[in-house]
């Protein structure tokens, strides 16, 4: 909101930070050690302790349900009309777990290894190892809840392979795995609502964090139906509000996904880690027009049987069926023979961008590549393909009006997931004591690139298994927290009310959506799949200018009272503006390429991402200050996985 224009791309370096909670010793014993050292809360005292959980996706829903089961007094919040709508519901492909039910060489260590390597050596070993360990418990829990995973004729669970892995460790429920896992968590949550341990607040949006005496002690929310501004106090606050991909306007996120909860917490002192790490998913339906409101993902599992290709020749406009085999370029199979169509997402996305930049893209505007099932249909039969991918093919046909059984799909990369998020320690606690962050909202496990089928795993690992232990350890000291400072509450409420009145008072000539679209365009063009110092500096000039215009020319109709969807959107866009700037600063300072962050200046002779481990093997945790961002570095050590240049060739 500040109208002061700082010098473009300016930041300062502060003191380094450390993850002080990760135990020492052999990696396979660390989580057991931490669980044992975590203090316990007496059951009679749990009832007197209140925990707020913001967001009801896989991480928030599972956390609220589990904390309720443990006997805490839980208050759960979501902006949708029901906790079941959270965007985890849209995850299609599956969830990884190191069960090794296939006997194909999988293990906890291999899942750990694949995830650290897939994250391009920018994640923490301790966290990732724990994730791989608890992955097996997630599957047990979900099956016991009645999640209808795909099964084989013998009644045992089926698995499939997924990008970035050479073993079959992905559990799935047709193309709706996220839906089924979320409904499992939702049902567990509703069971606790009925039991009286969880108080549910739907259609409530968190707009501010209350920090009292250095601790997170509550939130300010707006009741989206009445417009009333409410405060809710607690002994600990958990943010599970998801990722910030909608900063690009067009993404595969739900329309309501936003950064406000984590951005407000950042403004109150929570460090924001690696904001520039965004995942561009390679298999999405291409943009069809200016009115486009969102992009739709086609599950990456399609790459198991679909073959990606473009015409060999530039500007070849023949229909795909008329292009003979020897005039097609199956470029992933050609460049990466070992992994072929199953290379990790960042690599597949950039390869698609490269062939389109060469003028070999297909469809309107040349921004698309083919994903072809003709071979799979010939090999397996149409019925088998339909069984595996039927709902995805239907979805494609509904959106594009084209039949993928007859002509290849057209796909193009789209913003899908944000690896960055609020900085947390091993306990998932942010730099504000008492503020915990889980799921996509934190930064912790995926490094610079997330592997397919790992988001569901992380959300549920955090919510079901990690957080309930670590929050308990924190709350064991609640006796010393003291009363919440009323001034801190009043100030937070005033900030919320002031922002709402300001937005409504501008009465300019452009809608919040039109600003959002323009911001998204800037981010996609200058801070998207490929970044350069020049593009980022350009973005850092344009964003403050546009933000300034926003605050002088936005038009938000209606009143602060009652349901006002335009006001909700405008508030979120205002926060996206601030986040966008930090993302560009982070991308600018990290002059190496790694994972989803590709700096054109840092590539090898083959055009692959070139890391600079001497300079950048750290987590960039940014502190908000009125004078601009301050960088705190957390060094990353690799004791178990040797740092190598990733190769999928």
């Amino acid at each position, binding site marked *: 909101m500040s109208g002061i224009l700082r010098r473009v791309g300016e930041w300062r370096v502060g003191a380094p930070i450390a993850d002080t909670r990760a135990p020492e010793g052999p990696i396979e014993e660390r989580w057991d050690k931490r669980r044992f050292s975590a203090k316990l809360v007496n059951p009679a005292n749990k009832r007197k302790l209140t925990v707020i959980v913001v967001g009801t996706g896989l991480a928030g829903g*599972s956390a609220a349900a589990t904390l309720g*089961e443990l006997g805490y007094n839980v208050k759960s919040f979501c902006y949708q*009309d*029901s*906790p079941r*709508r*959270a*965007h985890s*519901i*849209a995850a299609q492909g599956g969830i990884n777990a190191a069960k090794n*039910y296939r006997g194909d060489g999988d293990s906890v260590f291999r899942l750990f290894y694949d995830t650290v390597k897939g994250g391009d050596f920018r994640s923490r070993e301790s966290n990732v190892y724990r994730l791989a360990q608890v992955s097996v*418990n997630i*599957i*047990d*829990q*979900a*099956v*016991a*809840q*009645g999640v209808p995973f*795909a*099964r084989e*004729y013998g*009644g*045992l*669970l089926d698995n499939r392979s997924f990008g970035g892995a050479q073993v079959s460790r992905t559990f799935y*429920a047709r193309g*709706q795995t996220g*839906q*089924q896992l979320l*409904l499992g968590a939702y049902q*567990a949550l*509703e*069971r606790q*609502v*009925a039991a009286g341990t969880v108080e549910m607040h*739907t259609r409530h949006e968190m707009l501010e964090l209350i920090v009292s005496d250095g601790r997170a002690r509550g939130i300010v929310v707006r009741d989206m*139906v009445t417009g009333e501004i409410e405060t809710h106090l607690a002994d600990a606050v958990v943010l599970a509000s998801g990722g910030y991909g909608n900063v690009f306007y067009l993404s*595969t996120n*739900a*329309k*309501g996904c936003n950064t406000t909860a984590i951005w407000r917490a950042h403004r109150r002192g929570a460090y924001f880690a690696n904001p520039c790490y965004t995942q561009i998913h390679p298999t999405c339906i291409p943009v*069809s*027009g200016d*009115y486009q*409101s*969102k992009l739709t993902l086609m599950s990456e599992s399609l790459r198991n049987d679909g073959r990606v290709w473009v015409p060999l020749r530039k500007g070849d406009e023949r229909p795909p069926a008329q292009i003979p085999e020897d005039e097609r370029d199956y470029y992933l199979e050609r460049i990466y023979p070992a992994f072929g169509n199953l290379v990790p997402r960042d690599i597949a996305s950039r390869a698609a961008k490269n062939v389109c930049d060469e003028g070999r893209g297909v469809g309107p505007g040349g921004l698309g590549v083919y994903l072809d099932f003709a071979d799979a249909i010939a090999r397996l039969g149409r019925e088998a393909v339909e069984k595996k991918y039927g709902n995805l093919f239907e*979805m494609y046909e*509904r*959106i594009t*009006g084209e039949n993928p059984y007859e002509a290849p799909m057209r796909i193009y990369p789209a913003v899908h997931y944000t690896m960055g998020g609020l900085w947390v320690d091993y306990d998932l606690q942010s730099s504000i004591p008492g503020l915990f962050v889980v799921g996509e909202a934190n930064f912790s496990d995926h490094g610079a690139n997330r592997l397919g089928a790992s988001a569901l795993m992380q959300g549920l690992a955090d919510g*079901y*298994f990690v957080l309930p232990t670590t929050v308990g350890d924190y709350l064991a000291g609640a006796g010393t927290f003291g009363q919440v400072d009323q001034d801190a509450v009043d100030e937070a409420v005033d900030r919320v009310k002031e922002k709402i009145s300001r937005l409504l008072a501008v009465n300019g000539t452009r*809608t919040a959506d039109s600003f959002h679209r323009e911001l998204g365009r800037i981010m996609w063009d200058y801070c998207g799949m490929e970044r350069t110092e020049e593009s980022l500096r350009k973005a850092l000039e344009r964003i403050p200018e546009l933000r300034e215009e926003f605050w002088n020319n936005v*038009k938000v*109709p209606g009143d602060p009272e*009652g*349901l006002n*969807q*335009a006001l909700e959107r405008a508030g979120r866009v205002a926060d996206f503006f601030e986040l966008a700037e930090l993302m560009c600063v982070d991308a600018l300072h990290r002059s190496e390429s790694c994972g989803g962050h590709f700096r054109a200046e840092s590539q090898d002779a083959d055009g692959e991402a070139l890391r600079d481990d001497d300079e950048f093997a750290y987590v960039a945790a940014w502190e908000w200050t009125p004078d601009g961002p301050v960088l705190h570095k957390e060094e990353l050590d690799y004791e178990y996985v040797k740092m190598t240049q990733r190769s999928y060739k």
Partner: protein
Amino acid sequence: MNLTLKIWRQNGPEDRGRMVTYQVEDVSPDMSFLEMLDVLNERLTLAGEEPVAFDHDCREGICGMCGMVINGVAHGEQRATTTCQLHMRHFKDGDTVTIEPWRAAPFPVIKDLVVDRSSFDRIIQAGGFISVPTGAAPDAHSVPVPKDAADAAFDAATCIGCGACVAACPNGSASLFTAAKVTHLGLLPQGQPERASRAKAMVEQMDAEGFGGCTNTGECTAVCPKGIPLDAIARMNADYLKASK
């Protein structure tokens, strides 16, 4: 294409509400129905009028948040499709399209096309779960589930809780929604211990919310975006009867 829209406007639960006519021009056939409404809302906002409130979120047919009655049919005439997945290529130039909210007493209108569906959450609270606290689960392979049962349970579990079944039912019944959950959990070995009590509690909650009874009209399954079959209701009734004996 150009369209005439007749949209239900209601400024809050106490307002009587009325149909208001709008014109929209230059609608592209590739737009989704909600994108067409976005264009209208953008125009209304700039003209200083109140935009039309409607619920939506994922816009890929899975969250269940969107839903409107389009030309008298819940989610529109396209089969097995949510409102967000309905595209304008199914309309033609000069069409008049009426747009109304779900209408049922247990779904009170909040504003315009937005209704309160929290009654659905309360039906799930009554018993739409398997009681298994976190950490108490045996190994996932300890109980094999026949593939047919797993597949049939999955088909019922795909319900997105949008409420189209209620909006389409002449009795305003939530039987298809409730039966989908009873069927999903009742088909799995893990769901057996609570099977009878679950059906009984959920049906009773459905009645308490003010939803009507089922008379096998089948309008629900005809509009269901996920194609939940009518025989789920027979299964729910059977479980309910067993529990009531």
